[in-house]
């Protein structure tokens, strides 16, 4: 997924090879991660796609099925991966992920701790941020989830950047051998206050902690716990609103030449520009955008804090 090996970097000359992970894009709402395997086929509602047809094509190409349907083959990125990964738990999405990485000041070479691993959505972006030489230690309470996560990181080529541990961080804290090693720690736990003292031990001086919680009571209790050894405690919430774009224009009821004021029954104008006879108007532009009304109303609160520098 990451161009750690420069031969895997996107390029006009880099073609899809046997064994590559590709994102098969049907529509915005329908994508799938597939490992290219010479003898295999992909079968979906658009027909049967032979993997062998894909080899030698550039990423970003449109490929056709035996019956003429098509999909696009995209190079995987952490953002696309978040859309296709298997949901073992509730996952973090791009807005929270992006904000966490910037606020935790994670840059190449950092050592980052995470609990819990969950579906690995954030982990993938953490790995990208610390690459090529940093490392992410991520822990999950569930053995099974850790195993699945390791398989995913193998598939996405991130295993050199990520170590998945099975551990009850709320109960046991992070492993002692990581003490004082972490640049940043991220907690997504139901009772983060139980893990905060251990997180403090793991952090280098001036290191940053983030705790993600859906309920304000968790935030209050976590903040309270942070106050003893952290400073700059700040809580944020981030949401994304998306916009719909449509072509068309509004009825300018005066457009009908010489018609008296609205004497004709109203008819909705055609919303397309395809006609040969499109008039210039002073009205709104033909491409219009407005916010989508349905949206995620809340994901969680992000509470950040910096370890006090007492030395």
């Amino acid at each position, binding site marked *: 997924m990451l161009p750690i090996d420069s031969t895997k970097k996107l390029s006009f000359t880099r073609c899809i090879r046997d064994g590559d992970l590709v994102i098969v894009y049907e*529509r915005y*709402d*329908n994508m799938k991660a597939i490992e290219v395997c010479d003898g295999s086929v992909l079968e979906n509602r658009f027909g049967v796609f032979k993997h062998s047809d894909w080899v030698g094509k550039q990423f970003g190409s449109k490929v056709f099925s035996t019956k003429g349907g098509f999909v696009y083959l995209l190079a995987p990125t952490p953002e696309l991966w*978040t*859309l296709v990964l*298997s*949901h*073992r*738990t*509730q*996952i973090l*999405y791009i807005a929270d992920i992006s904000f966490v990485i910037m606020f935790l000041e994670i840059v190449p070479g950092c050592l980052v701790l995470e609990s*819990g691993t969950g579906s690995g959505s954030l982990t993938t972006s953490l790995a990208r941020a610390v690459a090529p030489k940093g490392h992410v230690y991520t822990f999950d*309470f*569930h053995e*099974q*989830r850790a195993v*699945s996560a390791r398989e995913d990181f193998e598939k996405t080529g991130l295993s050199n950047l990520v170590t998945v541990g099975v551990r*009850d961080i*709320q109960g046991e804290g992070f492993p002692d051998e990581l003490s004082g090693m972490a640049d940043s720690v991220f907690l997504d*736990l*139901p*009772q983060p206050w139980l893990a905060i003292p251990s997180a403090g031990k793991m952090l280098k001086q001036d290191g940053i902690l983030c705790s993600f*919680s*859906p*309920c*304000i*009571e*968790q935030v209050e*209790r976590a903040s309270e716990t942070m106050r003893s050894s952290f400073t700059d405690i700040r809580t944020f*919430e981030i949401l994304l*609103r*998306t916009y*719909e774009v449509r072509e068309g224009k*509004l*009825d*300018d*009821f*005066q457009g009908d030449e010489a018609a*008296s*004021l*609205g*004497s*004709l*029954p*109203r008819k909705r104008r055609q919303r397309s520009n395809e006609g040969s006879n499109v008039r210039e108007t002073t*009205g*709104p532009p033909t491409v*219009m955008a*407005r*916010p*989508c*009304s*349905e*949206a*995620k*109303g*809340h*994901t*969680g609160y992000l509470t950040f804090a910096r370890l006090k520098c007492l030395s």
Partner: protein
Amino acid sequence: MSANKPQSDLFESLRSTWEGCSVLLDINDGDRLVFARLSAGATLKIGNKNCSLQPLLGCPFGSFFRVENGTQGPYLSRYTPSTEGNNVLEKGDGQSIDELRDNRALVDNNKAQSLTGEDINEMRRLGATGDEIVEALIANSATFEKKTVFSQQKKYAPIVLLRRPFTRSICEAYLKKYPTRIGFLRMDTLSLLLSMANVSANSDVLVVDMVGGLLTGAVAERLGGTGYVCNTYIGGSPYPMDIARIFNFGDEICKRIVRSPLTDLFSVQNGLQKPVSQDSDSCNMESQSNDRISSPVSMEEVSLASENVITDLIPESTSSPVIKMSKPAKLGEKAPQEIISSWKEHGFSCLIIAAPELDTWSLVKEIFPLMSNSAPFAIYHQYLQPLATCMHNLQLGKMAIGMQISEPWLREYQVLPSRTHPCMRMNAFGGYILSGTKISPN
């Protein structure tokens, strides 16, 4: 014409239902919402059985009923619920936190959270309605608030809550079920339109209501049988105002709701330089539209739950024949000539436009002279650009001051011990409003 003479205030102290009154039936705590007009013969289909609404007559608003089985079949029986309605799982020590995030307790299960924010976005891109998304959410999420054991039980013992329809509940119900019929007008946006236009008793309010009559009804509710709301329209056919019939308006209020084609509001003698209507067949069209308007919409169903939760509740959207006998008072008559003359002389007190399909400036530049000077106006639109253009042109023409484009942002919260957070699902867009005050042209 809208002097302060005594009115019969329908809103005063009528806290119980009466023959012919319009009610909102909230079935199973919001799962299904039905607007109905009560009469001895009216029935509501619950499951595959018709229950008479007769037991609701004379009961106070806020009463609960449940379906019981009698010798004659199922019937609605009034009862007093215990406090289970609030359904709170109390834990005092603050330790028990939203199960949602407790990864330690959550078993791996791809289905548990199979519908995500991104999924919702994607459904939206595919053109899913808000309602379809809600249903998908309920069907897919193990943690969706409504999906409790209690709600599962309700389908075997439906509970009917008797509510009086007001602007708020009508708007909220339509937004959930038929958002396009009301141009996605959200209740907070509607409330702002009414404030910004200073709708108050004795006002003569000019509205362009292309939101099904919701705006007209909301204004009439505020006027309470004083002043007038004039629902004006472009062209030969009035815009539908069926939703105004769902309000519990008596005669006094209904007769204050009138309509008029925009052309009729201008005339040669008023000095406003507007052509008279060239509509030679307007009489003919009137009668047509009159027919359309007066078709009774006496029961309107707004079902909010997913199919699988209330499979035994089959929507009943046709009205029973008897209901026609308790037809509501007529509203939306053509404005009489003497009223129109008075408006010409005095000007309207304010203007509200909710015409999501019209270009705002084209409309405003025609309609603006009808308002009295110093009259406030409020214009709703789904797109920003038409309002920006309109505001700019009004500024250039020195036609209005104090103008502002604003967008309300509304958020609902779940407030429960140790589990307080903003609702996970939100309506992220309430539209835009251009507001301001007309000034004297010279």
